[in-house]
């Protein structure tokens, strides 16, 4: 089967971000960027399915600035066969991303689309579900295990009460949770080899999708600061503090 996997370039998840003083957003200049962690899980899942003999071709797609070819290179170093960068410097909302991915699905006709469950920048948790809605394909979000069966996939999902298992006929959409796998590291020789793999850069205009944002971001502010830092000297002090808290708590 053929797998399409979507990857997003985001501020590296280890970076402590700074809100711009004028409230116009988050500082991204000179900040380390990398592949969204959940997209990495999605790529790893696709590569493992290829290694198990289930996938015959993996195509990665990213939507973003020219620099996003970095994360596609990483994906190809992990084992993806070829990539498409839909190039734009504009802010692209999840709905527009889903529409662009739908256009790629129409061209590529994959049997399975894998995405991360959320991007650690906007934390939206939407794109996979939206793509599934547009295509009217079955979806399995927050996947922590995937097993390919005859013409179907069995997926374990992380839900509020624990986990749930379901079976989806193909073609289908799956979004990856962190526990799905441990993404492999890419050694330099793999990155060098990845440079030989095809990467098509295509302007967003080629896809005929209106990407004008529907939501306006009025301002971005830092969260309220906590004023912590007091320590107690003994367990007894802690017992007193917690005991008093419990006594003062209003019963629901």
């Amino acid at each position, binding site marked *: 089967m053929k797998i399409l996997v979507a990857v997003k370039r985001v501020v590296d998840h280890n970076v402590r971000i700074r809100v711009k003083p004028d409230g116009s957003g988050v500082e991204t200049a000179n900040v380390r960027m990398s592949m969204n962690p959940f997209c990495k899980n999605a790529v790893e899942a696709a590569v493992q399915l290829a290694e198990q003999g289930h996938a015959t071709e993996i195509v990665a797609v990213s939507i973003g600035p020219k620099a996003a070819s970095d994360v596609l290179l990483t994906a190809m170093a992990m084992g993806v066969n070829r990539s498409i960068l839909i190039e734009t410097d504009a802010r692209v909302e999840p709905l527009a991303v889903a529409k662009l991915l739908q256009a790629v699905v129409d061209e590529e006709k994959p049997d399975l689309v894998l995405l991360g469950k959320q991007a650690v920048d906007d934390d939206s948790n939407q794109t996979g579900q939206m793509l599934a809605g547009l295509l009217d394909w079955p979806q399995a*979000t927050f996947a922590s295990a995937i097993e390919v069966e005859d013409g179907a996939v069995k997926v374990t999902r992380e839900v509020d009460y624990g986990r749930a298992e379901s079976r989806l006929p193909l073609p289908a959409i799956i979004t990856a949770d962190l526990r799905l796998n441990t993404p492999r590291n890419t050694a330099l020789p793999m990155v060098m080899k990845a440079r030989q793999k095809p990467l098509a850069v295509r302007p967003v205009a080629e896809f005929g999708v209106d990407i004008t944002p529907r939501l306006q971001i009025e301002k971005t502010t830092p969260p309220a600061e906590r004023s912590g830092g007091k320590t107690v000297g003994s367990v007894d002090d802690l017992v007193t503090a917690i005991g008093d808290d419990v006594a003062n708590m209003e019963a629901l």
Partner: protein
Amino acid sequence: MSILVLADHDQGKLSPATQRVLGAVATLGDAADVLVAGENIGVVAEAAAKLPGVQKVSVADNAAYASQSAEALAGLLSGLVDGYEYIVASAGAVGRDVMPRLAAKLDVMPVTDVIAIHGADRFDRPVYAGNAIETVVNTQAKKLLTIRASAFAPIKGDGQAPIEPVSLADIKSVVEFIAELRTENDTPDLGTAQIVVGGGQSFASAENFKMVEKLAAVLGAAVGATRAAVDAGYAPNDWQVGQTGKIIAPDLYIAIGISGALQHLAGIQGAKKIIAINLDPEAPLVKLADLALIGDLFEVVPALTAALEQRLKA
């Protein structure tokens, strides 16, 4: 202003999250209609009808909705949304699964994980693991929202709304539900508990992690865990607190042997008071906590549990 709320429920019980979603939308000014979808959910519908701020409860009772599949629920909702300006769900697993799928079908860009509502079309939502808050203006004719329940107070009081069945069209889902792998325990709901006791990977074994559960039991608290503790198998995945786990806002959070990685902090920003127990005085969570004890959890936790049991009994 017309509002449709998708009720969150679990095995015949209305989830406390729904009461908080109703608390959130109450600020929009109008009473809400509530949709209860599932199988044998009469009790849930009755519980919803008794809440204030509810105008009508619509019930879709069918086996197709038993597993709360996104395909079935988004299909159902898309037939019901005409005439509603707001379609709202809690940002739990079901809401996150269903609402974006519905939104795409309606060609609407939703606002997910709303933590504050400022008037009819202005909403706050956290980004970058809660390290920034975006104020978003949404002027679309239909507004689809998921609400972070822990950020809003539950609606309180009594109501008496009529309950009406909805007529169901074609409701086949191609997704076959196989099994629920439910965490068996009777600890309070993590998302709405007043007190949460959280443990990290420093407990070093599932056996030792029971210390957290024991302290929680003494306090009538819910149990939380870091991702590291869940990955190590000390705690089930639905106890994970953080950016990619549950977001909590208890009155008191007791964090034991937890470093305070930013992904964990993302889940506890709403806690009113934080107490940390940690060996390392430099741990980010210790610096952030309202109160901290520097010490070895293997000594502190048993002593604390015994002493609190004594004090709370007295």
